[in-house]
């Protein structure tokens, strides 16, 4: 990694280049320019190669799309599958068996557990404990790392069983799954998930006591909200300033745009405002729907208010959601009865299909136009990181002046730590970007 902070003496001019962000998914960098103590430029530069998935799915059937979009990310493939399958089912008017609905929620719990465990223990915790890497931290805190790996493994196992494999799962189909799951198969997860719940509860205690930099943001938070459950696959799009939209109507309020410094599109409100998604937004907007064990854990931290305004407390929000996801997974496992059939029959045809779900990193939106044969004619896939980019840049601009008087290494650490607190997934964010080919003679 190459990083520099250059100071302009008494003028308060600085340039901060962190040329290779570490412990984030994908390849990106940060460029900050500060003049007279005011940040003139805060660019999260994402140079991970564009991946063109939205074009790749054109001409494909809905079931093919579900497998293709899972390839967008190795950390959160279920989020892409869940959003796509719900979009198609909503667009085509397909009702699924309640047992299928529960299985999908269990599958999503698995992904939340593995993604949050990876981030809390291996990507973000080293910042708080003062280590440059998870490996350095593990030399002194081996038990903590083993806890994190055990949690992650429990999530992996859920995804592997229901999804067919731990990475890029293959079992999700429009109307259900590619096969039914026996009670004994699902019950076999119980012991490991029960152990994971205990670890998740201890994780909350661990991270709630971490010394955290002070930072206050007042920006808009956006998440799904469901009247009876913590948001994952269903709910309405709500915000801290009163937004209330159907999950298919994301485009009526938000829009993507290109910026010159990033291969990823940035999403903003149609009024130009940035907004933030993710665990802190979900807890702020839907804490009353947390599993009782997670709600008790949150209350025990006394940090609900701070989670809403200080991104560094994102690690606490993730730990609370680890409790929520493991506790709910356990309940689904205990109550599981196989569906009557692996999937509901359906007929392909034309449709407008759109939906939003909650990926580990925040709200994810998909929209598809299906032609007369039921093949995709147009697709739009909006991952959380592309929606969070503008808010991250705004937060960096607000935060940077407070650390530029610190020694170089500490200032860099604080800024990187802030970026990591949003758990950006840069590989996801660069799957799109329109390809324009100009032919000249």
């Amino acid at each position, binding site marked *: 990694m190459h990083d520099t902070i250059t100071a302009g003496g008494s003028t308060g001019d600085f340039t901060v280049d962190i040329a290779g962000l570490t412990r984030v*998914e994908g390849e990106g960098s940060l460029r900050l320019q500060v003049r007279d103590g005011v940040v003139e430029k805060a660019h999260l530069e994402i140079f991970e190669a564009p991946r063109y998935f939205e074009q790749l799915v054109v001409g494909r059937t809905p079931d093919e799309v579900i497998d293709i979009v899972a390839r967008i990310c*190795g950390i959160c493939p279920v989020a892409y599958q869940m959003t796509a399958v719900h979009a198609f089912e909503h667009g085509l008017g397909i009702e699924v068996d309640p047992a299928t609905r529960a299985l999908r929620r269990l599958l999503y719990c698995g992904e939340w557990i593995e993604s949050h465990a990876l981030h809390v223990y291996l990507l973000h915790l080293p910042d708080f404990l003062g280590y440059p890497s998870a*490996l350095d931290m*593990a030399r002194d805190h081996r038990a903590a*790392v083993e806890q994190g*790996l055990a949690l*992650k493994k429990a999530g*992996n196992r859920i995804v592997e069983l229901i999804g067919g494999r731990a990475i890029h799962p293959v079992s999700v189909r429009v109307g259900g799954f590619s096969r039914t799951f026996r009670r004994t198969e699902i019950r076999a997860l119980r012991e490991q998930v029960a152990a994971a719940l205990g670890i998740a509860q201890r994780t909350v205690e661990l991270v709630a006591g971490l010394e955290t930099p002070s930072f206050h943001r007042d920006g808009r938070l956006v998440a799904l909200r469901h009247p009876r459950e913590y948001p994952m696959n269903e709910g309405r799009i709500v915000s801290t300033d009163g937004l209330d939209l159907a999950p298919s109507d994301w485009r009526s309020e938000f829009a993507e745009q290109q910026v010159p410094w990033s291969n990823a599109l940035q999403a903003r409100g149609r009024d130009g405002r940035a907004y933030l998604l993710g665990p802190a937004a979900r807890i702020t907007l839907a804490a009353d729907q947390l599993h009782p064990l997670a709600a008790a854990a949150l209350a025990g931290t006394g940090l609900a208010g701070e989670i809403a305004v200080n991104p560094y407390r994102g690690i606490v929000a993730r730990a609370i959601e680890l409790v929520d996801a493991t506790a709910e997974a356990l309940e689904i496992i205990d109550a599981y009865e196989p569906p009557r059939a692996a999937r509901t029959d359906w007929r392909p045809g034309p449709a407008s299909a759109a939906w939003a779900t909650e990926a580990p990193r925040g709200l994810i939106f998909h929209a598809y136009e299906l032609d007369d044969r039921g093949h995709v004619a147009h697709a739009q896939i909006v991952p959380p990181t592309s929606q969070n980019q503008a808010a991250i840049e705004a937060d960096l601009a607000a935060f940077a002046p407070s650390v530029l008087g610190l020694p170089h290494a500490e200032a860099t650490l604080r800024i990187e730590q802030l970026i990591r607190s949003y758990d950006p997934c840069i590989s996801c964010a660069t799957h799109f970007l329109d390809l324009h080919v100009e032919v000249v003679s």
Partner: protein
Amino acid sequence: MTVHATDRHPVEVLVCGSPDRGDDGAPAVATASLAGHLPSGVQVRVVGQLDIDDLLSVPPGARVIVVDAATGIPPGRIVELPLDGLVDRDDRLRPRSSHALGFPEVIGLATLIRGRPLAGRIVAIGGSRFGLGASLSDRVARAIPALAKAVADAAERAGA
């Protein structure tokens, strides 16, 4: 002297990379060509992105060969190194497939948790194009037979 299969260490070849991301697919292409040509006791496992659990699940006494594409070395160049030699190595060689955690970190964490060194090697091939698509860049495509031979040789030596 006759060497029996039971005299050999078991070997796990962990194949990293994504076949739909250009040169990242080189390990999968090369190892697919080895089907039926590897010594007994050698098991090939496609892992995609290398996870700590992939290394923790290697049985005690087994040797590991990790095959991955890498940046920081010329496209098509094949590099073979001991796994533990990567942890403190400070150069531009950067295997692609450990994602959010750096490759040396994954190896180091697995070694630490196992409580003993991971016996094995990484066979890496330099790549130049990691965008979407299954086709390999020219220099990487030409080096596939050499990569397959390097993997087979490494597996043979590891098992001995």
